[in-house]
């Protein structure tokens, strides 16, 4: 008997693992579940392992202190061979993990996998989703740059709005009333010990139940889940039309997981690591902090909410959403599994996906936010200055210098908070422009106090030149009547 066989036998004699493991491996699964639709759970698990491994390697170098964290990331990026690649793998791994977990969740929901007897598997899965998002947020904080700093500020101010205990919550979260040296160590402990520990434990339980209760069978319209008969039906299905999980079903899981790992590596190699962006110094005000990809939708929603709805939204909607997710298998734990017979479920998934996509897309270019450097950094398009009088050209300088550009686009450059001005003279008369500039209105502040009469005139004269060539300028019919009445040519002379 070879030596390794002897070692194995010695260990097996004491561990007694071979029986249960073999049983789990070759347990029969319904033939149709050996499908490419059933690979996302295992891929999530593989990504979790990737995150643990790359995370351990990063922790060897990372310094969880407010003074040194950013520097240690720079060391990883620039001084350690392939340190940047390690950071990129961990960063892209996290993006992929959030995405694959969400896809897994949608797939399970659409396939009715949350129904009897797998309700608790679903509940654990919801907890694991929250933990995954928790890992994403705490990870974003550990990448201690400007985004992390201000993101943390937002997180703390959300916590601070909780009635009665808000202050204590902020204190607990930040290790003090404000972001300080203790903050980062707290998030380090959460990101490295608390959440991953719980996540691994939950993953173990989740898998245990998958093995014990069996993989959700392929839903067929008309095959109704009943508590009384389901277990027997499932048992019959796996034994009449089943195949061994290893190797007949598992190869697709392995193949897909490998492809996902390769995709992570390819993204890491091609796009590189995320940041760190500017140093986390609150005295640097020239920054436009943004959350990471998976929180962009929240950023958008909060930007568009009226201020008086922010607190109710932040404090009421998340608990309701979580309660709703947890309640799903208890409300709809039996009955049809097939998506053909569950239009509400299908609609809900697509509705949420479309909303999420739209909010995320808006979050990438933040049309609600002024671009604070457009006034000095976005040139006035040359074609808007051709054949303009000296006064109109000075009007363009007023437009820049008074920072109108920060909210108004010209030639596709500038802020999008207000309307683009390329065609403003086509729909506003000179008088309307004066009024708008001086008094503001429609979400625009009044600039009357900030502009001299000469500057106002110059600005409006420039604005009246902004229209497309083939279209007439906006006109005020009453003006001609008034001119004819008084017989003045004063308005014409201007």
């Amino acid at each position: 008997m070879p030596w390794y066989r002897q070692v194995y036998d010695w260990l097996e004699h004491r561990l007694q693992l071979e029986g249960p493991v073999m049983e789990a491996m070759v347990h029969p699964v319904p033939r149709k579940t050996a499908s490419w639709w059933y690979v996302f759970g295992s891929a999530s698990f593989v990504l979790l392992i990737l995150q643990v491994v790359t995370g351990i390697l990063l922790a060897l170098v990372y310094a969880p202190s407010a003074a040194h964290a950013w520097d240690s990331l720079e060391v990883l990026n620039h001084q350690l061979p392939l340190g940047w690649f390690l950071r990129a793998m961990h960063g892209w791994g996290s993006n992929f993990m959030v995405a694959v977990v969400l896809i897994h969740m949608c797939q399970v929901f659409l396939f009715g996998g949350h129904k009897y007897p797998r309700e608790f598997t679903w509940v654990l899965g919801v907890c694991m989703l929250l933990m995954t998002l928790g890992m994403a947020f705490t990870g974003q904080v550990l990448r201690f740059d400007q985004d992390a700093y201000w993101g943390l500020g937002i997180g703390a101010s959300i916590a601070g709005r909780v009635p009665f205990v808000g202050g204590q919550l902020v204190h607990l979260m930040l290790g003090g009333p404000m972001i300080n040296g203790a903050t980062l160590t707290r998030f380090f402990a959460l990101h490295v010990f608390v959440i991953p520990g719980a996540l691994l434990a939950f993953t173990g339980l989740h898998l245990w139940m998958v093995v014990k209760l069996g993989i959700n069978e392929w839903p067929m319209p008309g095959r109704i889940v009943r508590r009384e008969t389901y277990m027997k039906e499932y048992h019959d299905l796996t034994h009449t039309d089943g195949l061994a999980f290893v190797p007949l079903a598992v190869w697709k899981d392995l193949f897909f997981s490998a492809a996902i790992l390769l995709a992570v590596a390819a993204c890491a190699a091609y796009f590189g690591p995320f940041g760190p962006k500017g140093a986390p110094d609150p005295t640097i005000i020239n920054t436009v902090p943004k959350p990471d990809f998976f929180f962009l939708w929240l950023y958008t929603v909060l930007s568009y909410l009226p201020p008086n709805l922010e607190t109710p939204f932040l404090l009421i909607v998340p608990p309701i959403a979580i309660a709703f997710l947890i309640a799903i298998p208890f409300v709809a734990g039996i009955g049809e599994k097939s998506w053909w017979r569950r239009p509400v479920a299908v609609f809900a998934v697509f509705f949420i996906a479309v909303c999420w996509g739209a909010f995320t897309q808006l979050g990438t270019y933040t049309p609600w936010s002024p671009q604070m450097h457009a006034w000095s950094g976005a040139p006035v398009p040359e074609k808007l200055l051709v054949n303009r009088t000296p006064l109109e050209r000075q009007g363009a300088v007023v437009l820049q210098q008074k920072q109108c550009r920060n909210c108004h686009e010209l030639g596709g450059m500038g802020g999008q908070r207000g309307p683009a001005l390329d065609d403003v003279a086509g729909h506003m008369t000179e008088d309307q422009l004066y009024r708008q500039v001086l008094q503001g209105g429609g979400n625009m502040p009044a600039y009357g106090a900030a502009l001299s009469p000469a500057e106002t005139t110059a600005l409006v004269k420039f604005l009246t030149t902004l229209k497309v060539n083939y279209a007439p300028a906006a006109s005020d019919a009453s003006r001609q009547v008034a001119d004819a009445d008084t017989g003045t040519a004063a308005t014409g002379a201007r």
Partner: protein
Amino acid sequence: MQSEVSSRAKNVTRYGCLLLAVSFLAGCKLPGKPKDGPEVPRPEQVLSFDELYAANCSGCHGAHGEKGPAMNLANPEYQALVDDASLRDIIVNGEKGTLMPAFGEKQGGELTDAQVNVLVKGLRAKWGKGDVLSGLNAPTWKATHAGDPAAGKLVYEAACARCHSASGSQPSKGGSILDGSFLAVVNEQMIRTTVIAGRPDLGMPDWRSLKQSGPLTDNEVTDVTAWLMSQKPALPGQPYGSAAPAQPAAAPANKISGKD
């Protein structure tokens, strides 16, 4: 059979080695590898002229120093006319009486002294062509004495009126520069600079060819500038015609600020 297997094995090894070498070479310059230095440097550490110009100057002076609404910086004559100290002073403190704001830190701007120096050096390097004015007997950049408006009126008619119109109310090729609002947002120095250096990007010639009879003299430039500034009305920018200042209702800007 044996040889076939071994040759296949050799092939596999050969391709394997090739693949390894390629991936190793690619590994040296993978596109994702971060560039040197932090991705976002501290604002005061930005010391590249192109970045500083694009972020702070291009809005008014144009992406390439020309065809913007403000001064034509890419004009070599302008670069030769203004000395380093004055250029630095304009950037740091702004130009009083015009719309050029102060960019120096102490004046509430965002640029450090080092960054202003980079801008001054870069402007020279990019658009200066040395002392292109030497030997041309050009007027000095700063006026040496006060001008005579009465003499300036004649200079205006001889040198400026053919493009900018004699009265300001007639349409003209270059547009009126007698408009009260225009005169209120520029200052004497800016007009002087423009008269001397011209606006080649807009087709306005320099002091040498404004007048058909020959170059403007230093005195003529001083006089015409003085006359132009003397045309600035007491209450510039009244929207409803020149008769309006007598009627307070026609001055919306004053009304608004009075309300505050």
